[in-house]
């Protein structure tokens, strides 16, 4: 574990700045696998309680009989330095929980959208979501069997993403490959920032 200095000069407790990247894509595209590949801790698992109306203490804890459901989240952590910590969150399998997606996307520096070329359409909702919110994202084609049959430009056309969006090939199980994907995303976010300046 990276040691964390306990205090700033002046006795104030040091609290790191959190940074978040979302790993999105359809079911079985390798989101959890990618989080596992780069996380410094065994990936963690937590749950949120939802009602049809959303989430909250009044909605969920106060009304015991009300119909509730849980949404599971997987996440990992990379301690950048004592002042910055990066979290990687996989999107939940069930696309219908859009409330959870909003919370996942809140403050995110960007998203990796994993794609399985055998089921391209399963990643369409993720692409739409991040496009609509103006959150920087890149496409990472997870190289399952048969992915080599497709050209990158063919996948780009099929997904209908604009030229400016990076599209990379990866193996979500491989740490170096997953690292490269993250590096590509962060660079893309920086490029977008520079373009706006």
């Amino acid at each position, binding site marked *: 574990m990276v040691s964390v200095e306990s205090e700033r000069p002046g006795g104030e407790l040091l609290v790191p700045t959190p940074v978040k990247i979302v790993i999105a894509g359809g079911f079985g595209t390798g989101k959890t696998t990618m989080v596992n590949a780069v996380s410094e801790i065994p990936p963690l698992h937590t749950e949120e*309680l939802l009602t049809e109306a959303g*989430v909250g203490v009044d909605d969920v804890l106060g009304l015991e009989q009300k119909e509730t459901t849980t949404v599971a989240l997987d996440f990992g952590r990379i301690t950048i330095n004592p002042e910055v910590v990066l979290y990687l969150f996989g999107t939940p399998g069930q696309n219908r929980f859009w409330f959870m997606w909003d919370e996942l996307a809140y403050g995110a520096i960007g998203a990796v959208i994993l794609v399985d070329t055998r089921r391209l359409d399963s990643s369409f909702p993720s692409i739409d979501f991040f496009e609509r919110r103006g959150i920087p994202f890149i496409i990472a084609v997870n190289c399952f069997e048969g992915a080599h049959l497709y050209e990158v430009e063919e996948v780009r056309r099929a997904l209908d993403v604009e030229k400016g969006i990076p599209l990379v090939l990866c193996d979500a199980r491989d740490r170096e490959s997953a690292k490269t994907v993250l590096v590509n995303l962060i660079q893309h976010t920086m490029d977008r920032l520079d373009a706006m300046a």
Partner: protein
Amino acid sequence: MAGREDWWYDEAAGPLVRPYAMVRGRTRPLRPELHLVTQVRAMPSPADPDALSVEHLEIMELCRRPLSVAEVAAYLDVPLVVVKVLLSDLIQRGDVVIRDPSRVPQVPDRNLLQAVLDGVRGI
């Protein structure tokens, strides 16, 4: 992880009993700055430990090093909303300090991005 599913749909006790009990049935507003990655750090010791529940004290212990709300929920193995209720109490009492993520998602700080880039390259 064993136990997660079984306590939740505990047929004998009925659903939602444990989280309800953990927050003692009281409902109060959640602090809006408690997001998934909001960093939580405990003060060296709680102002009035006798006023805190076992779960509050567990959080104080966990957060001797800074952790995110999501990590606290994962380590305590309780739903996020329960942890947010307990943390809201601790913030109110001044027993923990927090830092929430950037409020302006579209325009993150460039130096911060550079630090993250260097950090990821270095792992």
